[in-house]
C-alpha cells in the first residue's frame, strides 16, 4: 500500500484548510527533497507497522486469537445479521439526535432566561441537567425500559426500542444543553443589545441573532456528544433491544467466537470518522465564508 503524492499534510488530511480560509500555505520544497521525505515517511510507516504485525502474529497464542477474533468464515456467515442489527443502532441515534437538537436548545434557553419570573424554569432546567448528567446512562435506560412499562398504565408503550430512544434523548439532552448554553453565553452581549435596539423581542433576538452564532461555535463539541451518543446506543441492549452489541453476544454465545465484536468496532469507526471529517469541513467552509480573505 502506498500513500500517493507528497509528504502528508495533516491539515489536508483533516480537511481544516477550507477554500479561501486562513490556509497555512505548504512550504515549497525542492523536488528532490519532496521525494526523499515521502520515501522516508513510507519506509518508516512500513517498518513500524511491519514490526508490530510480526510481534503480534508471532506471539505463542496467535493462531488461537486469530481463530477467536479474526475468523473470516464466521464473519461471513454472521455479517447479514450484524448489518441488520446495526440498522437498529442507526435508527436509535438518528431519532434521538433529531429529538435532542430542539429539546436541548429549549433547556439551554430556559436556563438562560433572566428575571425572577423565570426562576422556576431556571431551577427545573438546572435540576434536569444535574440529574441526567449524574446518573449513569445505563441506569436510566434500565429504569425507564423496565420501570415505566412495568407500571401497566394504559396507552404507555411497552416497546423497549421506544424507551431506549427516550432514555438516550433524556440523558444526552442534558449534555447537549450545556454545550448550547456555553455557545449562547459566548456570543457577546453587544449582539443582543444591537438586536433589541432594533425592536426585536428577546425571543427574536435569540432566534435570529444569538442562537445562529452560538450553534456555529459549538458544532465541534456538539459532534463530540453525538459520537458519544452513537456509541452509547449499545447500552440499550440491557433492556433487550436486539442491536449491534446484543447481536454480537448472541453470535458469540452460539459460535464461541468474538469476531462479531471486531466487526462492531470497525462499523462504529466507519460511521464516526467520515462524520468528523465532514463536520470539520463544514465548519471550515462556514468560517471561510464569514472571514475575509482581506
Amino acid at each position, binding site marked *: 500500500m502506498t500513500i500517493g503524492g507528497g509528504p502528508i499534510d495533516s491539515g489536508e488530511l483533516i480537511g481544516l484548510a477550507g477554500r479561501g480560509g486562513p490556509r497555512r500555505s505548504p512550504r515549497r520544497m525542492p523536488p528532490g527533497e519532496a521525494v526523499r521525505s515521502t520515501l522516508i515517511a513510507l519506509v518508516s510507516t512500513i517498518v513500524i507497522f511491519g514490526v508490530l504485525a510480526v510481534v503480534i502474529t508471532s506471539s505463542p497464542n496467535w493462531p488461537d486469537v486469530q481463530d477467536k477474533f479474526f475468523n473470516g468464515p464466521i464473519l461471513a456467515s454472521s455479517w447479514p445479521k450484524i448489518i441488520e442489527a446495526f440498522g437498529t443502532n442507526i435508527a436509535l441515534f438518528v431519532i434521538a439526535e433529531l429529538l435532542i437538537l430542539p429539546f436541548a436548545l429549549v433547556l439551554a434557553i430556559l436556563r438562560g432566561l433572566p428575571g425572577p419570573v423565570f426562576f422556576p424554569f431556571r431551577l427545573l432546567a438546572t435540576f434536569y441537567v444535574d440529574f441526567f448528567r449524574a446518573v449513569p446512562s445505563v441506569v436510566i435506560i434500565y429504569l425507564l425500559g423496565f420501570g415505566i412499562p412495568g407500571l401497566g398504565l394504559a396507552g404507555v408503550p411497552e416497546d423497549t426500542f421506544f424507551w431506549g430512544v427516550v432514555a438516550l434523548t433524556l440523558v444526552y439532552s442534558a449534555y447537549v444543553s450545556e454545550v448550547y448554553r456555553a455557545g449562547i453565553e459566548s456570543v457577546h452581549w*453587544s*449582539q443582543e*443589545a*444591537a*438586536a*433589541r*435596539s*432594533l*425592536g*426585536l*423581542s428577546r425571543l*427574536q433576538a435569540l432566534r*435570529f*441573532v444569538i442562537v*445562529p*452564532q452560538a450553534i*456555529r461555535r459549538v458544532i465541534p463539541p456538539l459532534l463530540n456528544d453525538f459520537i458519544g451518543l452513537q456509541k452509547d446506543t449499545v447500552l440499550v441492549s440491557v433492556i433487550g433491544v436486539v442491536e449491534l452489541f446484543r447481536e454480537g453476544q448472541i453470535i458469540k454465545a452460539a459460535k464461541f467466537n468474538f469476531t462479531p465484536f471486531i466487526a462492531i468496532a470497525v462499523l462504529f469507526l466507519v460511521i464516526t470518522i467520515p462524520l468528523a471529517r465532514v463536520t470539520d469541513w463544514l465548519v471550515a467552509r462556514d468560517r471561510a*465564508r*464569514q*472571514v*475575509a480573505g*482581506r
Partner: protein
Amino acid sequence: MTTRAPAQALRIEGLHKSFGDLEVLKGIDLALDEHEVVCLIGSSGSGKSTLLRCINLLEEIDAGRIFVEGDEVTAKGVDVNRIRRRIGIVFQAFNLFPHMSVLDNVSLAPRKVLGLSRTDAEARATELLDRIGLADKRNDYPDRLSGGQQQRVAIVRALAMQPDLLLLDEITSALDPELVAEVLNLIRELAGNGMTMLIATHEMSFAREIANRVGFLDAGRILEIAPPAEMFSAPREERTQQFLQRVIAAGRL
C-alpha cells in the same frame, strides 16, 4: 402631570442610574426639539454611553422619566419593543451581525419587527445601501468590509427602521483616522435632512460644526449646555474649561 410638548422629540427628567454602588447618572435633565442635533462631550466614564443606553431602554433606570415625541417610554407596562423601533442607536463597535450578509443585517428588523415582506425589506435596504455607495457589498459578510463601511452599514441598519430619533454612541472612536470622514459625512447628510440626533462624541470639531447645542457631561451630570460657538469659545464652568483645555492640548480641537 404629563404635559405634552408636541414639538419635543426627546425629554429627559431627573434621570438617575447606578451600577451597584457606582452612581453613573446623577440627575440628567435634557430636551431635544424635533430636527435638533445635540452633541454630548465629556471625558470617558462621564456617563455619555450610559445615558444613550438608558434612553433606548437597554439599561433599566433607577429614577426619572423619559419622553419620546411626548410619550413616556419609562412608564410602567410600556412595550419596550415598540419604543425601541422608534429610537435608533449606533454603537462604537458597530455590532453588526457577523453571520449575516450586509443585506440581511439591514433588512432583518424591518422584516421581523415591522412585518415587511422580504422583497419590500430588501428593496428598502438596497436603496439605503445604494445611498451610501455600498449596494455592491450587499451580499458580503460584515468582516469583509472596512471599519468605516461597517459603521455606515450599522447606521443604515438603524435608519431602515425609520426612527424618530437617532442615538450615536462614539461611532468613530473605533475607526482608523482615515475612515472617520466617510462616517461623519453620512451623519452630516442626516443632519441636513432633519434627523433628530443625540450624539456622544470625542470629535470636537465635528460637534462644533454639526450640533445645534453641545452638552458637557461631567461625573453623571450635564454641567453645561450651550450652542457650540458659546461652548467652545466661552465655556462658563471651570470643569468645562479644564476639559476643553485638555482636548486642545491633545490636539483634538
